[in-house]
């Protein structure tokens, strides 16, 4: 049974990972300027855990995800998935990862090929990995994400943002992965459909016994879905802990600001505005 989780190993381990990107040269002879996207990140996600990563845009969240999915290589450090070190593994030996780890991306406009029928988009991982891509499986997946079976005949532009994200989720689940990575899956959606898509992800993760790594800039979204959370700032993890604890009693000043930025009814009623969130009154950023 290929879907049996390997015992005793954490789903994902990231050990002291550094990722630097060279920037275009600014002078002919000087050294190439470097962007430090990740500066020594370590984390561990257990089997079946729902792990959240929170941080503002540009803090290295997406870089971290790409490294975990072996779509990019770290400059230093190790990424271990289900006990296998994937850091230096060549693409041809990553088959287990391509089957067991799938991603849902942020922008449902850009994450579905506009020239492919939904049916082919969902079946793509199956076809690539040599599984029989039966129409039956595609219909089953469409149904699982709450779309009608005839959706498979249409093109992505004929769907709304929320529906497209459902298609993305169906594609990610097609090869029966054990680990699902969601990169800001609801931040490009209308507020009205966010809860639906979040609940869908949450339900499917429960039903299929998946390990979830959920990335967002919005702590309240993460709180809704995840058991544990890591807070990232400027390429480093500043705080890790159970979501409820981090939410209720943030330790790191950055987390405290993040939590205080969550709009609540009380704050709105007491007349707080966004300007109150700026670190101005004698406080350092």
């Amino acid at each position, binding site marked *: 049974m290929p879907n049996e989780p390997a015992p005793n190993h954490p789903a994902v381990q990231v050990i002291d990972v550094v990722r630097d990107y060279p920037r275009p040269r600014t002078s002919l002879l000087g050294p190439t300027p470097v962007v430090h996207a990740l500066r020594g990140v370590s984390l561990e996600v257990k089997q079946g855990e729902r792990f959240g990563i929170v941080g503002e845009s540009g803090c290295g969240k997406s870089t971290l995800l790409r490294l975990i999915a072996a779509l990019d290589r770290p400059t230093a450090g190790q990424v271990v998935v289900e006990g296998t070190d994937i850091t230096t593994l060549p693409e041809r030996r990553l088959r287990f990862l391509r089957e067991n780890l799938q991603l849902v991306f942020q*922008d449902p406009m850009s*994450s579905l*090929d506009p020239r492919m029928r939904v049916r082919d988009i969902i079946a793509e991982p199956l076809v*690539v*990995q040599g599984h029989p891509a039966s129409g039956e499986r595609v219909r089953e997946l469409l149904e699982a994400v709450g779309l009608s079976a005839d959706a498979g005949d249409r093109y992505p532009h004929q769907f709304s943002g929320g529906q497209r994200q459902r298609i993305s989720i169906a594609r990610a689940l097609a090869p029966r992965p054990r680990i699902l990575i969601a990169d800001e899956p609801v931040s490009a959606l209308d507020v009205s459909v966010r809860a639906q898509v979040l609940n869908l992800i949450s339900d499917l993760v429960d039903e299929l016994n998946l390990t979830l790594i959920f990335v967002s800039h919005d702590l309240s979204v993460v709180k809704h879905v995840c058991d544990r959370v890591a807070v990232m700032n400027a390429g480093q993890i500043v705080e890790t802990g159970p979501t409820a604890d981090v939410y209720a009693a943030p330790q790191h000043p950055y987390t405290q600001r993040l939590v205080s930025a969550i709009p609540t009814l009380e704050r709105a009623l007491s007349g707080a505005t966004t300007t109150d969130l700026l670190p101005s009154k004698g406080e350092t950023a």
Partner: protein
Amino acid sequence: MRRLNPSLVAGGVIVGVIVATALLSFVWTPYDATFVDPSVRLATPSWAHWFGTDKFGRDVLSQIMVGSRTTLFVGVVAVGVAAVIGVPLGVLAAMTPRWPSELIMRTNDLLLAFPALLLAIMFGAVFGASTLTAMVAIGIASVPSFARVIRSGALQVMRTEYVLAARAAGRKPFPIALRHVLPNVTSLVTVQASVSFAIAVLAEAALSFLGYGTPPPTPSWGRMLQESQEFLFSAPRLAVFPGIAIALAVLGFNLLGDGLRDRFDPKLEDRR
């Protein structure tokens, strides 16, 4: 319902008329385009000869009709050569790592800096002046612009999340190129083909004018222009008719290219 844009319609109509004329010339022309009738030399336009006759008494309208075949044939082959070489090069340059990509693009720039007409004349000198040499030379000269445009489009596609998703599903680079990159740059290829076609039409006329293109007696708009030179003052219409034909063809393909570009503009995508 999408609004039709005027350049697309105008370009489509002009190109349509030229294609129809070329097709018609296979089954019917007023006279045999190469038939020499000394009794009607340099005749002015009349009901018998709508566009008049040239210095040998050949019917100008018939020559222009048959000449449109040459023009279209040269355009199709030249654009075909350019696309078949240029599109894969562009995609390759977008998908390979830094060094091979740089090599392709710098070589490309080198060819881009080389005047197309000079290349064609060189080809003519080496392989002999013929329609085929002209077509291939014009095609090769159009490769760099194809490669450049397609590379930029392919780079955009490579940055999309659906390519990332395909990689995460285990797709290898070659299938990604076939399944995702190529289908998503077809609009660019169409636009570039149309614009290159206009350039090829002009280049063919210039080459034939210089004697490096289609050899006599096959009618060609460029050579008709050249033959009309000596009568520029006595019978200017001999230059005017092929001139108009060339101008219309170039205008038509350019308008079509512009129209297609607007049609495929991603900002208008939502209206689809």
